[in-house]
């Protein structure tokens, strides 16, 4: 079981450090980024491969009463209980039916192990750092601060996600027993 989620202040700090590191990497002669890319709706999203533990087919999911809306359920991952998050809900997209192409991307974000339900997984992609650009200002709203960059490469457009921001623990009030 992952421990307590770190306080959001810490997360912000960590994200800032990570962002600073990324900028430095941009100027250094590190040419490529390794991304796992996946589809949601018709868009391609990418996350650093270092955050990915494995990709699995969608197992039987158990619904948890009163869990936050973005939690699709829990699954048995080799004897360990995996919380599966509907990434669509977190990105403001409508929920989708599980299809044969649906996958769960098991990610490890600083010890938080989570399953992300996605429509389909593309392969691991290496993109040159030069193809990475900041997102247009208009896209980067306060709510959508998890879009860190956009990769335009070989006629693809990959939206890079900051999972720590996209999956920041929400303060959704636990539902009441009454009614």
């Amino acid at each position: 079981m992952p421990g307590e989620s770190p306080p959001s202040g810490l997360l912000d700090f960590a994200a800032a450090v990570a962002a600073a590191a990324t900028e430095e990497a941009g100027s250094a002669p590190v040419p490529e980024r390794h991304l796992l890319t996946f589809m949601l709706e018709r868009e391609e999203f990418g996350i650093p491969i270092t955050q990915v533990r494995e990709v699995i087919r969608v197992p039987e999911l158990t619904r948890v009463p009163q869990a936050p809306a973005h939690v699709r359920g829990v699954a048995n991952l080799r004897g360990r209980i995996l919380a599966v998050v509907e990434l669509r809900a977190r990105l403001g997209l409508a929920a989708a039916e599980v299809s044969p192409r649906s996958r769960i991307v098991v990610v490890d974000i600083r010890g938080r192990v989570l399953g992300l339900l996605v429509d389909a997984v593309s392969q691991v992609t290496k993109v040159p750092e030069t193809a990475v650009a900041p997102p247009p200002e208009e896209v980067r709203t306060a709510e959508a601060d998890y879009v860190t960059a956009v990769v335009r490469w070989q006629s693809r457009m990959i939206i890079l996600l900051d999972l720590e921001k996209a999956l920041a623990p929400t303060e959704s009030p636990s539902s009441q027993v009454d009614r």
Partner: protein
Amino acid sequence: MTDETNPFGELVEEYVLECLPLAEQVADAFVAVERCWREGEDASALLTAIAGPLHTIKGNSAMMGLAAMRDTAHALEDACGVLRHDAESPDPAAGALLAAGGSLLVELVRRARDNPEADEALEFVERVRQWLARGASPALETQPERRRTERRGTASSAGQADDRSASVVRVDFRRLDAMLEILGEGLIQQAALTESVRGLTRRIGPADQVSRLDQAVVALEKTLKRLESTLMETRLLPLSTVVSRFPRLVRDTAEAEGKRVRLLLSGGETPLDKAVLDRLSEPVLHLLTNAIVHGIESPGERRAVGKSDEGTVRLTAAPEAGRVVIRVSDDGRGLDEQAIRRKGESLGRDGRSESGLALRDLIFLPGLSTAPQVSALAGRGVGLDVVAGAIHALGGTIDVETAPGAGTSFTLSLPVTLAIVRSLIVEVDQERYALPLAHVAETVRAEPEAIRQINHRGVAAWRGGLIHVADGGDVLETRQARPAGRRFYVVMAAAGRRRGLLVDRLVGHQDVVVKSLDPELGRPVLVSGTTILGDGRVACILDAVRLLEGGRRAG
């Protein structure tokens, strides 16, 4: 876990493990000594009994270079040495001095890892020295001789301890947790095996080899059950491991409040899983503190109403039908119902029309507890919502009874263990849930005519009364357009409340291994944990107490 700044990292842990119980034993004995003297009894036996532990603490502390503990233990030894000769007519200051020293010693040993500064210890040693000088007892001169006899005493008592502990091994509790985790996996695999064998039997009938397989699986199940019960027993510790420090804390609280309080403990031998014990200590201590601070009156007040100066707080524990019931009661002034009701009304909870039941509901309300007016006016209800929350989190229940002028009694009912819960597995809208059997009173086939609607709520006759029968899909928010036939209802019962829950299927009984909730799941009120069933599916373990509370509030 070695601490880089402390080369003795692990040794200090060993030291604390060994010395803390001894220090607590010493401190408890000093509290008892103080009481003996106050009541004019002879305390020499008590003083003799603690010489051994005290000496061991002194020796171990010296070995570890922990000067504060060594000096405190040494000073206490000196004081005891004098007092043992003089045990029947002690100086009244002596009791307080010893009790203070005992508390200090426990505190120092508890903080041994930080090698605490010796200031407090120096101060205490100085106090003892002054007291000894004032006593100017001839015993001072006979100290060397006393030391020798004492050492002899220690050697013999240590010898006895060795005999007893020869076959005892000290194990890190995390290992027991790991073993339980592995056993849990074994239980899940066994359940899966059982299910496949059953499927096989259905497919190919009672062939010879299949029935042999079946027997083997049944035997495996029995063996695992035995392993489970042995492991669970290993995890059990007597309640006294937690409550033994309470007399001292009660004494300190009472002193700070200017009250006289006697704490009566019983049932300390009652066994509980360490995981439960660890989380029980705070809430119980909270109740004890409440009883002293708010329940017990000052000696003057007590005299005025014809009670003895000294108040009594009782802490009793006893196993009861697979659970443990703990009661904290006092003979104080009782709850001020009027004030609690007034406060309840101000919070929008009208309690006027109801009696004792409503009071019980009000006193555990969060708003009620934090309001300073109530604690000033009525005195009670400080942080009781926190206590209730902690007890509920343990799968327990809490109840209160009070009589004006005669006292208050809190009753806690707790599961013996948290790790494995015997459960009824039910199915509602294709989802499976585990209901702890401790709270299942009965399962009933739901005949269509048996459940009537009163004010849009299902009601059924049960054991000569009427109970509310809720739809599982409604409660668990899975209700579908065309619900499968709700063919059964499960009558849940806890703390005098009953409620039926309509379900589609009764899947069976299973000992489920509780896996805690992933923080990602928020804090769903109705779910106390998750578990993996025999078929590998995950099921939520429902919190029976919360289910019943929901029914009560809604109804």
